[in-house]
């Protein structure tokens, strides 16, 4: 992480605005973080540019950890995260004079993806813990009573995310439990889309990612909290009403209570116009709204 010298930043900004000559002064908002949220954030930025062309919003992904690290280091105005900031992280930020304020901008169902050839229709959280957990007990599909055509060895190819992903942290906490640890040998992908792509090409694979990354070439699994309970397919509605067992809030963190242009932007995100974009990108808005 490069931390820019404030003096240098100011002089560059001055140079740019001088070079721009008589162009109107534009405010730039730096927005960074969660891979799960990056498409929504991008859609927000594009749409907001039409509402308020004065403000330019620079969006980049890289994972919740990236956004939170940037918030701690003070290099970002709004950090996107698919997990809550840890107390330790909030304290670190405060020690550096930054004050992260949490905003929930939508909800996401964490979908479990398997290859099209995989006959598994429903799974329980316990099944996932067996596959992903350290000494979980399931290394072959047969251990779960499943025969996957095209997966001759039967070995489960466990696809996960890199260890700073918010999705990874959420999965660890809510599937493997407070003290649960991941097993060795998971394939740690750098982006949500990479997970879905790999599962699509690999008959033996299983992976997790936001529902918005679902395609026609992979299968999402119906999830049940416990064996015997009815399973629920991941969907926006199921995420919002809480019936889907692994749904999570999506956060944006601002440095201090939002002010000025950042406040206007956050207010717009929470308005019907912003929330309809959340729905359009495949996530659940924070409240029931009618979008066209």
């Amino acid at each position, binding site marked *: 992480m490069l931390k820019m010298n404030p003096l240098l930043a100011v002089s560059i900004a001055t140079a740019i605005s001088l070079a721009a000559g008589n162009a109107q002064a534009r405010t730039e908002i730096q927005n960074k973080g969660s891979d799960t949220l990056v498409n929504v954030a991008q859609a927000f930025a594009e749409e907001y540019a039409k509402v308020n062309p004065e403000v330019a919003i620079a969006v980049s992904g890289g994972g919740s950890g990236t956004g939170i690290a940037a918030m701690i280091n003070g290099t970002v105005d709004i950090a996107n995260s698919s997990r809550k900031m*840890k107390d330790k992280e909030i304290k670190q930020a405060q020690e550096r004079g930054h004050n992260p304020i949490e905003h929930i901008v939508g909800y996401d169902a964490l979908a479990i993806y398997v290859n099209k050839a995989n006959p598994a229709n429903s799974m329980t959280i316990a099944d996932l813990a067996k596959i992903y957990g350290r000494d979980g007990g399931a290394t072959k599909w047969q251990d779960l009573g499943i025969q996957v055509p095209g997966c001759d060895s039967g070995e489960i190819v466990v696809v996960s995310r890199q260890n700073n992903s918010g999705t990874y942290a959420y999965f660890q906490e809510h599937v493997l439990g407070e003290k649960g640890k*991941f097993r*060795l040998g998971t394939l740690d992908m750098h982006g949500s889309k990479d997970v879905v792509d790999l599962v699509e090409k690999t008959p033996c694979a299983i992976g997790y990612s936001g529902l918005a990354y679902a395609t026609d070439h992979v299968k999402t699994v119906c999830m049940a909290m416990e064996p015997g309970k009815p399973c629920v397919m991941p969907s926006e509605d199921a995420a919002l009403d809480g019936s889907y067992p692994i749904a999570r809030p999506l956060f944006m963190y601002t440095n201090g209570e939002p002010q000025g242009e950042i406040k206007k932007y956050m207010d717009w995100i929470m308005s019907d116009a912003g929330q309809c974009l959340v729905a359009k990108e495949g996530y659940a808005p924070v409240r029931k709204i009618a979008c066209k």
Partner: protein
Amino acid sequence: MADTRGALGMPTAGVGDFDRRDLDWYIDKAIGALVFVCGFSAIIFVLGIFLFVTKEGIGFIFERLDFREFFLTPYWFPSDPDAPEYGILALIAGTASVTGLAMLVAIPFSLGAAIYIAEFATGKTREALKVLVELLAAIPSVVWGFIGLVIMNPLIIAVFNVPVGLNVLNAGIILGLMAAPIMTSIAEDALKAVPDRYREAAEAMGATRWQVIFKVVLPAAKTGLLGGVLLGVGRGFGETMAVLMSTGHAVNIPGSVFDSVRALTATIAAELGEAAVGEEHYQVLFTIGIFLFLITFIINLTADLIVRGIRKG
């Protein structure tokens, strides 16, 4: 850095000079100083980088590092909220297995290519081959990684009927092909350095072409060839992007070439951007950096000494 110049003996205007101090004199001095700075900049940069990496990682080494955990456990889970685990054994095993396989691929390839270019090819074929080998070295590593991800992955699944094609085999082949050009160039230099009188003497004794190469030229060039191999190993240890994309990036001690692994370099690349500056996770990545730096430094130094050895003798 500026204050080190004087200490390094940068030329300064002497008191007792009898030269005319016209414009040319100053230009001469300025150019001299510039060339001097450029010459020493390599040393300054290497030292600077080493100091920076050490500075960032040293905190972890003193405060948190448990040598036994670090080098002897395979569990690399540095972002765990309660009990982060910092074992790099699996990462070392990943890097070593991929590099080892890469050498198995690259050594026969590059040695064969070098023998052909140095001993058999003539005229235009020779020039064309040399240019092509250099061109191969110019392919960016991310392109190699892409080939591993998009072409080799399904190919390995189809050919060997294994569950996943992002594994030691995939990365080893990719890395072998990446290391082959530099190894070919150095091996060719080493073969060319063998005096022609050796070959002529052998041929005069009635040796066949093959016997000349196998019994005379190769033994005479063996230190140079070894140096080339070591440089290839150094390349393998340091390569990042292609390995990140083709190994599967799984913390795992491989039991066969079909297991996914993760390399030391790839771990730094994937995680550094996301670690908060100064935090334990950030520092431990720099500690891995120090470790890598030391290994590649030792490999390159050994290679250099070996290559230098033959140039002199």
